[in-house]
């Protein structure tokens, strides 16, 4: 069920999430403001919408400074990796029937692989910056991503068992009767938490941790390279939200409205939820993060997998 117009699909999936992630900066600032009883950016253009344009002009005209002590090649490549891996993952996300770049039969594994590769961006950025705050951020990122990746993939195996496929379109089609959030509620919660950690959003933004580490792994970055980390983070937010939609909330399925509208509504709902998380929860301590990951979430994911597997086997 690959798109009949592959070039149009590729261009659309490149351009729309990129501009959407730029708009998310405005969305996030407005929503955070709403939850803190403020207004947020509301001066530039109608409702402050042109704030994004102002930010873009600012970030493009800033000095793109590479510190003399940095490892230049790696320093330049690191911000590209995060964008490339997230955009690659977006290629396998079925936004609607026909709006997908490539319908892989192992799309879920591809997504997991790409999100693992995304860690390189952070670790290399922290390493190449040759500054202690960046390095600490990078090391935290490595530890956090590796430990959360484990139960992230395990929490998804329940969905795979129920759908009987790694293909994301097949998973969506398998939810015609019942969204997987009902039989796989535990899996959903686990994936949600892992997704927040994977997108490095609060309360799991320890690699960045601006209260402790200046700006974590991107302390030394400026100009458009910093912008790429920023866009990468928002792209990751879009990606995780669309993955939750696809895997647990029936993707594009829904009555009356066209499929893509349903998809966007669900995705936007989760984006708002992630922003609410940021507005309300404090950051974890690092040892709490690791304990939480390995001692709570991993056993829970295994139990979930075990029970789901047992039920699937018994039902057959």
């Amino acid at each position, binding site marked *: 069920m690959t798109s009949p117009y592959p070039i149009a699909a590729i261009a659309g999936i490149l351009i729309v999430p990129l501009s959407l992630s730029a708009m998310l900066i405005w969305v996030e600032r407005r929503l955070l403001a*709403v*939850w*803190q*009883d*403020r*207004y947020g950016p509301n001066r530039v253009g109608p409702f402050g919408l042109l704030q994004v344009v102002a930010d873009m002009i600012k970030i493009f005209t800033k000095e793109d400074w590479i510190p003399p002590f940095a490892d230049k090649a790696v320093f330049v490549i690191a911000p590209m990796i995060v964008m490339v891996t997230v955009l690659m993952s977006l290629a396998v996300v079925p936004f609607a029937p026909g709006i997908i770049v490539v319908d892989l039969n192992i799309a879920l594994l591809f997504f997991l692989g790409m999100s693992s590769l995304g860690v390189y961006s952070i670790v290399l950025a922290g390493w190449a910056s040759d500054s202690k705050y960046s390095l600490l951020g990078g090391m935290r990122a490595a530890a956090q991503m590796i430990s959360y990746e484990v139960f992230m993939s395990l929490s998804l195996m329940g969905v795979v068992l129920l759908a009987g496929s790694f293909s994301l379109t097949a998973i969506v089609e398998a939810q015609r009767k019942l969204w997987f959030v009902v039989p796989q509620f535990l899996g959903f919660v686990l994936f949600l938490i892992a997704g927040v950690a994977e997108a490095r959003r609060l309360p799991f933004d320890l690699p960045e941790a601006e209260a402790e580490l200046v700006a974590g792994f991107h302390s030394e970055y400026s100009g458009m390279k910093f912008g790429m980390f920023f866009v990468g983070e928002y792209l990751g937010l879009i990606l995780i939200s669309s993955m939750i939609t696809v895997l647990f909330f029936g993707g594009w399925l829904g009555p009356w409205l066209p499929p893509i509208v349903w998809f966007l509504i669900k995705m936007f709902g989760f984006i708002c939820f992630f922003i*609410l*998380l940021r*507005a*309300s*929860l404090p950051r974890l301590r690092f040892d709490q993060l690791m304990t939480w990951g390995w001692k709570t979430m991993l056993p829970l994911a295994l139990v979930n997998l075990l029970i789901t597997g047992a039920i699937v086997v018994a039902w057959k």
Partner: protein
Amino acid sequence: MWSLLRTMWYVLLHTFHKRVTIQYPEEKAYLAPRTRGRIILSRDPDGGERCVACNLCAVVCPVDCIALQATEDKNERRYPEFFRINFSRCIFCGYCEDACPTYAIQLTPDFEMGEYNRQSLVYEKEDLMIDGPGKYPGYNYWRVCGEKIAGKDKGEAENEARPVDLRSLLP
């Protein structure tokens, strides 16, 4: 876990709270009547300068932003030849107003003095001087002080007794 969800719920409820932001250029915040803002120099009820160039304000100023030069006019009244306040330094502490013996220097509640050019924040005497008496409408320093000026000899000020002639025994 429950407390986390509760926190998130209460934060979500803030969607329906009143915004605390004051949309500044359109709405103004309440300013107390004695807010300390832009400094002015006031005049006597009959239009003369109150400032006697005693330099007390310049001395008390913690950031040294006041500069002035004293001189005397044809009526033997001291007045500042120039009076300069550098508002890029001024911290609006109001010590100058406290120190002023003649109520000449006063702080007003106006604070909107933004400029694009730093040099425009240096106010000269003609920028500072206002036409009225400011906060003290009836006060005229030269009429109550014991200082002798042209047209007013010793003892001719309001509430002032004639000077005593020490060499005379007469009551």
